[in-house]
């Protein structure tokens, strides 16, 4: 069977859920090989977990350049592996970094790239949702190696036994790839909540919160959800930009999206309309978010959310 390369997304060796989803997608297309870029020991430790989702091989590539520079060295490595291993295709997470690595590798290898896929079928046919969900498009790559960036939460990760044979890759990044130097990093305090793009549930607050996100956060915690925000809430400095959902923020496709005090502007919808279930709480029954909602409550979020939070906690 032909090899399908999967770029592993991890934080200090902790593999993100989206990677298991990619492995599941890869398994349906061929034999998954995971590419772990980072610390060698962390890569070896992660291999077992990658094997649980079907990785037959785990390539571990380590070099200080991967941390010291933006995507250049990683993209060069991926391009090199595409040229030497000739995989049937490459799957990467549709994160900002994943897409940049994929784009560069496409140029370097004369390949085509499809981004923000919500699924991949036989022959590397990718499904995409475009124009704020107005259309569903199926596309394929016609030149070089198909490189496809898949959105988190699009494929249900399924455990499958893989040999996870670790192979270390030695590859020295070129000077040209080492141009965008990271000179400093400031860690942000952790919220303790799930990561926004990966969370199974997202509860978002908008201008309707008036700046008080406490009821939104309480509901999120009762549901084990990540907290999102509309741009209006972010622009007002009520919530950090990293929580923004929409065209200029994160794209999320959770099992459940709860929009609280959000009107549902097209730019917001662009970031959440592929969610499996959408719930809206809004005072204004005319709010466009209700056109998307599977369940809507016309009401004041300051009474509806606490009641829902209590009811959920009471069920536990």
């Amino acid at each position, binding site marked *: 069977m032909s090899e399908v390369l999967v770029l592993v997304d991890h934080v200090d060796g902790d593999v993100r859920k989206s990677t298991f989803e990619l492995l599941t997608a890869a398994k349906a297309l061929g034999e998954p090989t995971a590419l772990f870029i980072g610390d060698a020991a962390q890569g070896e430790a992660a291999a077992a977990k990658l094997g649980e989702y079907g990785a037959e091989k785990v390539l571990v590539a380590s070099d200080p350049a991967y941390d010291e520079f933006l995507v250049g060295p990683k993209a060069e490595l991926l391009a090199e592996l595409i040229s030497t291993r000739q995989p049937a295709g490459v799957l990467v997470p549709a994160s900002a970094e994943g897409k940049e690595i994929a784009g560069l590798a*496409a140029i370097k290898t004369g390949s085509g790239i499809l981004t923000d896929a919500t699924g991949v079928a036989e022959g590397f046919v990718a499904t995409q949702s475009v124009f704020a969900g*107005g*259309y569903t498009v199926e596309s394929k790559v*016609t030149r070089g190696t198909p490189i496809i960036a898949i959105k988190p939460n699009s494929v249900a990760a399924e455990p499958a036994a893989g040999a996870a044979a670790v192979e270390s890759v030695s590859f020295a990044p070129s000077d040209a790839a080492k141009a965008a130097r990271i000179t400093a990093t400031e860690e942000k305090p952790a919220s303790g909540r799930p*990561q926004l793009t990966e969370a199974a549930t997202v509860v978002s607050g908008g201008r309707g919160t008036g700046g008080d996100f406490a009821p939104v956060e309480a509901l999120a915690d009762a549901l084990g959800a990540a907290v999102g925000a509309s741009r209006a809430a972010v622009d007002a400095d009520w919530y950090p930009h990293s929580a923004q959902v929409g065209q200029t923020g994160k794209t999320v496709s959770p099992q459940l999206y709860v929009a609280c005090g959000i009107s549902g502007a097209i730019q917001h919808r662009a970031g959440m309309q592929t969610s499996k279930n959408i719930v809206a709480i809004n005072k204004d029954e005319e709010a466009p978010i209700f056109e998307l909602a599977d369940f809507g*409550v016309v009401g004041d979020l300051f009474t509806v959310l606490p009641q*829902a939070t209590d009811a959920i906690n009471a069920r536990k």
Partner: protein
Amino acid sequence: MRIVTFVKYVPDAAGDRTFESDNTVDRSVDGLLSELDEYAVEEALKIADGDKKGTEVIALTVGPDDAVDAVRKSLQMGANKGVHICDDSLEASCAVGTAKTLAAAVKVVEEEEGPVDLIITGLSSTDGAMSVVPVMVAELLGRPAATQASHLEVAGGVAKIRRDGDTASQYVEVPLPALVSVTDQINEPRYPSFKGIMAAKRKPLDEYDIEELGLDAGEVGAAGATTEVVTLTERPPRTAGEVITDEGEGGNQLVEWLASKKLV
């Protein structure tokens, strides 16, 4: 300094965005300068405003006849010069084709005007929304890219940016000439003033076809596309969900619904 900003003309998201029978984006509908590229123009103008030695800002677009509107708006905002790459054979370009065209256009600008120190682009186009064209162009030109800048400072032949990620902010430096893509957090784009609108009418605006860029028709457009649309389906209108009005039990009813869907 000389800065080129990439400005894309996109269908208006507030209007009806559709496709043609050949599966390409219908560009006959009302369009405008992609809002996210306004931040790129503004950032270039801010650098020019602060540069006593004079910085030239050139707005560059690749697109059909109407795409010149994106350049015009940039000129109205304050860019000095416009460049429009327009050619029938560019239709249905994929990201790779667009990147090749933009890279070739930058080279022509350099031949005509002189070296380009900095390319500033938006974070992503509001129609394609791939966020890959900037790094692709940088790669084709052999220049470093510092992407997703929420802050930019240019001094001493170096561009320094800050990029705000989920778990950390990073500070990144690239030597010029370089490409920087900017987010909507970086500035507040100016509105064209009446004076700006009048002045824009007299600003130079060059148009090139692909032959003048030294590109072959087989490399770009539909002929050079690296991807192909297989099927295209308009999503059936979402079946209206259940909407209730809170009369004291709204929160509880919501949880009952969640439970019926096994979401709690």
